[in-house]
């Protein structure tokens, strides 16, 4: 018997890396982005755009790929004020979904972080480690979603295949 789980490698999403004070980002982004989450390692969403609070003065905005040009046009990375940094990073991450009853078990093979619901709530999102790599981890319907640096995508797929045979 193997694990009752499926995993899926995902296509691209629009991703923008946001750095600077929350107020400055809010001031520049206006209604383009939802309210920034106020607790680290949590997320907020508005419409199809999500914002992840992933580090000190550091956020990731994520939206379906078809929103990428619209977000680029509104966030204007090249001309935003000097005190904030906005960089399009859509291609830098490879996303995976692990879903099914045994998703927590498979995640626990890769990840040293406690992903039990008591420790990792529905709105949690954080950088941690998956298969020894820096990875962004969050919950999704029926399981977990995570992302690693894009160039490691094939290796992680290899790993997940081995873990779930």
């Amino acid at each position, binding site marked *: *018997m*193997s*694990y009752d789980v499926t995993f899926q490698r995902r296509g*691209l999403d629009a991703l923008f*890396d946001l*750095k*600077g004070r929350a107020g400055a980002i809010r001031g520049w982004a206006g209604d383009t982005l939802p309210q920034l989450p106020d607790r680290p390692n949590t997320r907020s969403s508005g419409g199809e755009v999500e914002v992840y609070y992933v580090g000190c003065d550091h956020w990731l905005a994520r939206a379906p790929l078809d929103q990428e040009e619209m977000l680029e046009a509104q966030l204007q990375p*090249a001309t935003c004020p*000097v*005190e*904030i*940094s906005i*960089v*399009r*990073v*859509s*291609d*830098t*991450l490879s996303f995976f979904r692990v879903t099914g009853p045994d998703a927590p*078990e498979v995640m*626990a*093979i890769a*990840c*040293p*972080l*406690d992903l*039990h619901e*008591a*420790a990792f709530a529905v709105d949690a999102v954080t950088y941690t480690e998956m*298969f*020894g*790599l820096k990875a962004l981890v969050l919950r999704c319907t029926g399981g977990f979603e995570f992302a690693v*640096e*894009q*160039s*490691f*995508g*094939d*290796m992680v797929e*290899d*790993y997940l295949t*081995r*873990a779930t*045979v």
Partner: protein
Amino acid sequence: MGSSSRLASGGRINRDRPLRFRFNGKDYQGFEGDTLASALLANGVRVTARSFKYHRPRGIVGHGPEEPATLVELEGEDASGNRPATTVVLCEGLRAHSVNCWPSPDFDLGGISQLFARFIPAGFYYKTFKWPGWHLFEPSIRKAAGLAAAPATPPASGHFEARHAHADVLVAGAGPAGLKAALEAGRAGKRVFLADEGTEAGGSLLNRALTISARPAMDWVAEAVAELHGMKNVTHLQNATVWAYREHNLLIVNERSPEQDNILERSWRVRAGEVVIATGATERAMVFSGNDRPGVMLAASVQAYVNRWGVAPGKRVALFTNNNSAYAVAADLAAAGVIVTAILDSRKNVPPEALELVPDLPVHTATVAAGIFGHKRVRAVLAAPVSGGTPKWIRCDVLAHSGGWNPTVHLWSQSRSSLRYDEGIAAFLPDRAAQTCRAVGAAAGDLTLDRIVDGGADLPYAIEPLWRVDVPVQRGRAFLDIQNDVSVSDAQLALREGYSNVEHVKRYTTGGMGIDQGKTGNINIIGTVAMQQGVPLPQVGTTTFRAPYTPVSFGAIGGLREDSVLFPYRHTPVTQWNKDNGAVMYEAGARWRRPGYFPNPGENLQEAVNRECRAVREGVGVYDGSPLGTFELKGRDVPKFLDFIYSNVMSSLQPGDGRYGLMLSDDGLILDDGVAFRLDDHRWMISTSTGHADAVNQHMEKLLQTEFPGWQVMITTVTSQWNNATICGPRAREVMQALGTDIDLSPQAFPFMSLRDGTVAGFPARVVRVSFTGELSYEVNVAPRNMAALWDKVMEAGAPFGILPVGSESSHVLRVEKGFLSLGHEVDGTVDAYDLGMGWAMSKKKPDYLGKRSVMLRRAGGATRRELVGILPKDPDQQIPEGAPLTPGGHKQATEGLVTACVWSVVNRRWVGLALLENGQARHGETAHVRLRDAVIPVTVTEPVFHDPDGTRLRS
């Protein structure tokens, strides 16, 4: 032999499920629920092993992981070595053999070394094999004294797994105390992780005939297990040993039979809020002459075989004890119909409640076992009065002995928690906890059930310690450590030779080492040292308990990490194209798998590389430069920051322009070389060498966060946002035009070391004019989603110009021809920019930047420097191995430098090289000598550039 030793009834075995197995080439039968040890005893097999050093015949001594004597190697698909027979769960078709004898333990040729036993005292190896070196002797000694070999092939099916877990409470051990602790925590709603090394829960209750509230104690166990299984917040594992207790309450558990049948073993790394150590206690051996003979067994193990496995290890059993627990053993034996021929008790006064258990058995007080009659099995024990009266032989076929009980404090001690010696039970007990942990039950010194579970009935414990039998009639070896053949005389010798610390005694005698780590005998070594030195036992102290508690397979520790994922690997969108087009792929730094070269059918490496290099020098080539580290920097203080981390000035760059630079660490070493481009007033992009991208990122973040938190610089890693195809060669511009671009490609509008955003072949692109080959180059950066398509278009547009893909082998040749640096080749921990002829990169204007002071300081000493030069072998067809030393005149003298690179130059049609050579910059034109083991190669020293020294081509 037959199943003569199996009792007619009883035991936790399934008599409806017979299992066939093979041991040392003979076929036997056991039952489901047996271990290999219980099945062998049931079949009357008495000699099961030969000892490590002297090849003495040995039998089964214990019933669990404490077993010192019988180690077996399993054969077949689950081959593994050095397994105590007592922990091998019997299964249909199991095949095993003893590890240390040939051809069999009954007739062992190695046993001849017993004749020389007196020549192998403690420290024998240290004394004998020290000249000219231990390594000369080690292989043959290992073979002679060997344990099992590692399996030659990996398991045929299934894989190992390692998994993380988190718990509020981790309970180690599912005996009565562990079950109780797990129940309490589980009922309180805590996340509980309960792991036990045995096949079923119950601990000592499995082996004893005790009651709780007048019902069989195992009924209580069954109810506790059922309740735990009903709790979602409880993970309960059997066959799972907690073998390491690490810092910050991290424990490692080895689960040997996971539910998933394709997982061989699983390693759990459990981070626990609190740890409950309920690991029970281990019976310790008595030390007397002949205590290693087959049939001399631990008393509680004899009891376990009778009660748990329905096996009587002997027909006539004598016991030897210094404590009460053996009386319960005797009572259980008598109840099972075994003849108890004597109980020898070293104590003068035996507590009446112990005697009441055995009203009809002959008890000899103040009497010790002083010898064993019998070689391959016990035939009689010599009972000697402590006071010195006449000893007499008492017949028996098993001698069951108990030297008392040691709380199993291995995990407790691994946690760095302290121990104290308790006179009451004559054992070391948990004292102060160093982490959030507590010991309970027998592990805490509560050795009887009534002290652990309400309603538990047990014989009170009492002991008078006896560390070794010391009566004059004793003859022959008395073993302190049966597995390593360490006897009392070895310990005495170690002490005489000055190894007075117990840790030194351990190393010198090897007592307490090996598979069992002295679980039954260590305390007796400590006791012997104490007796010899005339000090109280606590003053001697214990040796350090270290992980693992019991052996663990390497596979379980490694988990999934094997084969293709043994090391991480990175791909670019062109990886598949490379593979499809015959590239020889290998790792080329920072875990990137890259094409080394693209051989045509029948072509060797050199031919392929020459062809690729000619394309770049004469026509056009393209390589995938995606792995280069790329960072976008934003903020008011970026110019100041770049001027600080690069040795040259970057702040003067105008938007769209870039500069090559060196990054130094503050001790003056070269950390990286790369380029910096200014995108606009406040945005910059820098690129680093592939191999140092992570190091540079760490370096920059460390500076900004720990030393200059006030500087406004925000860094975003964009290595994987920008992939690039670098088109290089005299015809690169034509290929760019053929691709189609809105960027003006003329050298005036788009000169060397500048950057333009636009579109190329219809893709949004950032084109950078840098060159790592010395030719006209366009680094076309696009988003990775477009990279594979761009690559196809480049190959298509370049086809009329004969474009070739270029691998890392050719990149190496091309950069050597130009004398461009490679970190790790020309740049090591000794050279600075001046040595490399790059003094121009060391800014004179800037008063301070990283590394400046250190470089100046080092050079102020005026010591001779090794400087970068080119070398031309006098014989143009002579290749020189990279790394070869240069010595003055080629003589056998201290080296004056080394060859850092040597390649076949397609433009010069000869071998050319780079070298670091003492005072090299002043020696151009001179002859230097490469000294190899069997040859001296004269070379001409030159400028370190062999192609287009003025850089006309790369600027074109």
